């Protein structure tokens, strides 16, 4: 199932968020070697995990983390605006209608097909959330290992600047444009997952 949480909670307060931070540590620190803070040796938590962060989390039937993604408002500090503004040619896109996507994390140990399903479900949820909340675009910093995944979801993506080599990988700032046609673009790309987003913190996938 897919659930949406608004606001960060400290370790120990919410097992679903804890599982996400643990999965983030396994992926971003253990696997990818990122130089990012680790709390209590098991949780990857950074300065942007605060009251204004929004988390969309995919869990399996037993509640274990399968995937997650973080949304940050752009009129507050965020990855692109604070750490990588040089990736934008013009000013960093900010405003109430633009959020930033970061920390897309798929659990290690998922089979390849399941990884795609979870990725697709998170993207669908992110699009639905945008349409509900009047979000017109998502900015993000993408390196080469994620770029083709982001593009193959089927939505409209524009470059915000010239990509540069960062930490040995071609890295660029992108803007994902969201409008009423975006769900159809996901369907055309075969990545749309039928689901309803409930106005509460939990949403259920519709039976296929």
């Amino acid at each position: 199932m897919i659930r949406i949480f608004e606001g960060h909670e400290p370790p120990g307060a919410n097992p679903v968020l804890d599982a996400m931070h643990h999965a983030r540590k396994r992926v971003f620190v253990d696997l990818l070697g990122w130089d990012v803070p680790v709390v209590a040796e098991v949780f990857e938590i950074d300065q942007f995990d605060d009251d204004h962060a929004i988390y969309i989390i995919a869990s399996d039937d037993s509640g274990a983390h399968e995937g997650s993604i973080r949304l940050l408002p752009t009129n507050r500090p965020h990855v692109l605006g604070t750490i990588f503004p040089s990736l934008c040619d013009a000013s960093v896109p900010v405003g109430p209608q633009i959020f930033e996507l970061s920390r897309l994390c798929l659990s290690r140990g998922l089979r390849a097909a399941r990884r795609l399903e979870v990725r697709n479900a998170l993207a669908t949820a992110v699009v639905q959330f945008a349409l509900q909340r009047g979000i017109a675009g998502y900015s993000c910093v993408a390196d080469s290992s994620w770029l083709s995944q982001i593009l193959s979801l089927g939505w409209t993506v524009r470059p915000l600047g010239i990509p540069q080599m960062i930490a040995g990988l071609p890295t660029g700032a992108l803007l994902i444009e969201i409008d009423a046609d975006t769900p159809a673009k996901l369907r055309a790309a075969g990545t749309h997952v039928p689901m309803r987003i409930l106005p509460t913190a939990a949403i259920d996938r519709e039976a296929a």
Partner: protein
Amino acid sequence: MFDRDDYKQVVSILGETSDDNRVYEALERLTFVLGFDRFAISHHVDLLHPPVGAYGLTNYDSDWLNEIITGQYFLDDPVQISCDGRNTGFLWPNPRMLETLTPRQRYIFEQGAKRNLRGGYTVPMHLPGEYAGSCTFATSRLDTVPSEAMPAAFFAVSFAFEAMRRVVRLRAGLELRAPPKLKPREREVLILLGRGKTYGEIADILHLSEHTTHEYAKRIMRAYGNIQRNNLIARALFDGIVTYPELLSMH
């Protein structure tokens, strides 16, 4: 340094279009913006008999293209071979490549050099469910290409590959369907089929009737749009629904 607005415009076009003429124009413009002479984007398939769903676009001179196809250079192309197992773009020729060149590969390089294609930057493309491919930007002089061109080229090529996927879908006239989601039981049947078990054997292993096993198999084939049974395992592997270790009982 190259023109940033030109670059962003080209990438935006690649991000939206489903028209392969516009993809061609955008790639040609990108080639010159980045400081290269020629581009070639294609799947790594037998160019003499390309399978459905494979594509290629290039502004190589037509006689060079003819030579590549009739000489079947694509079978031995050292640049294509360098793409295997890597996702990062690379410059060529490079020391690793030069160490392992066969005489035929040396000949292919020499033929390209005669046409002023002495070096280049190539981006491999590997996505599950797709033929392997790459995009190459070729040049007469590798030392004149700015270093900023590489990450920029990498990104633009990723956009170009996605554009070509949209072109292929449009040409196929149908929307690309995601691989069918199989129930766990259906997947078990599929794996046992892939291991060469008969319906009778599968029924015994899973404690089902042979009729029910057959029904599961039919349901799976229907979920795949009524493909034939001997195509089913190949498709399921291609889509990542089952894996080689599972089929080879290494699981």
